[in-house]
């Protein structure tokens, strides 16, 4: 609790570091290839056809 209170001002930094870690894990799990594959084809659901 004390740690959290004293570091509250830098919570954004912890959040950013968690984000970078998550992106690292995402890269290792090949999740960005899946995002890319979805994004480079016309998404029929998004345009209300599929």
């Amino acid at each position: 609790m004390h740690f959290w209170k004293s570091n509250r001002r830098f919570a954004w930094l912890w959040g950013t570091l968690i984000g970078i870690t998550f992106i690292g894990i995402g890269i290792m799990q090949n999740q960005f290839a899946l995002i890319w594959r979805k994004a480079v084809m016309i998404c029929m659901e998004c345009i209300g056809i599929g």
Partner: protein
Amino acid sequence: MKKLRLIVQLIFTIFTNGYAYGFLNGKIYQGSFKYACVPGLNCYSCPGAIASCPIGALQALLNQRGFKIPFGALGFFFIFGSIFGRFVCGWLCPFGLVQDLLHKIPFPNKRKRLPMHNILKYGKYAVLIFLVCIGSMILFGGFAKIPAFCKYLCPSGTLFGAIPLISANESLRSQIGGLFFWKLGILFFILILSIKVYRPFCQYLCPLGAIYGWFNRFSLVQIYHEKEQCISCMACEKACPVALSLSEISTSPECIRCGRCVAACGKGCLHFSGRGNFVIEKVEKNPDIR
């Protein structure tokens, strides 16, 4: 401040949707930038989009066979949210820009909020949980899971993706069916409502706003209040387009950090800053100031 925000919104929208070839030929960009997500709600099927939509990316990962934590999309949410919070909604979202522009159209009895705002504001959390998350994991179309939010609700996809693509691509035009008209109806309803109510989609339905709102309390970018100089005239509260009180400005999940309160403050005691967490203390209106 208003002009600056409009310029930033326009530049960011043009920059992130700058693939002009796509608009001319009814095709979409297929380069490497699409490995990354933009911060705002920007359909990746927009012919001009050079990067991915974060909600679309989240759903694509949730649509995988079995369940895997969507670390790739969550990473972007944590980074954008921790740095900007809902500043993204106010300054960097293309669909927010469209609603801002529509709200400038003169109309009698404009409103900041819809009636029953205190209940309706939870709609965006319901959309996030039931359509984006649960819907994407359990709804099936044929043998594949479907991105339920994109398919049944997202007006950004209809406006930036469907309309320009279908206008320029004849083979897509021939496939239009009931679903397209359902989404077109939702888009028009939201756009028309935007003329009367300030950003109804952002306030009540946007799952991205629900996510970034959670970061508002501790994001790097905040609006600071210097209490010593404040004369409690509450000009900031009057200027707030989403009707927040001074104690809610910046830290409330509803604050989109548009900066109107900053511009309205005659004493200059509200300002943008990047110093991390700061909670504004409750201030009562000064009875001597009308």
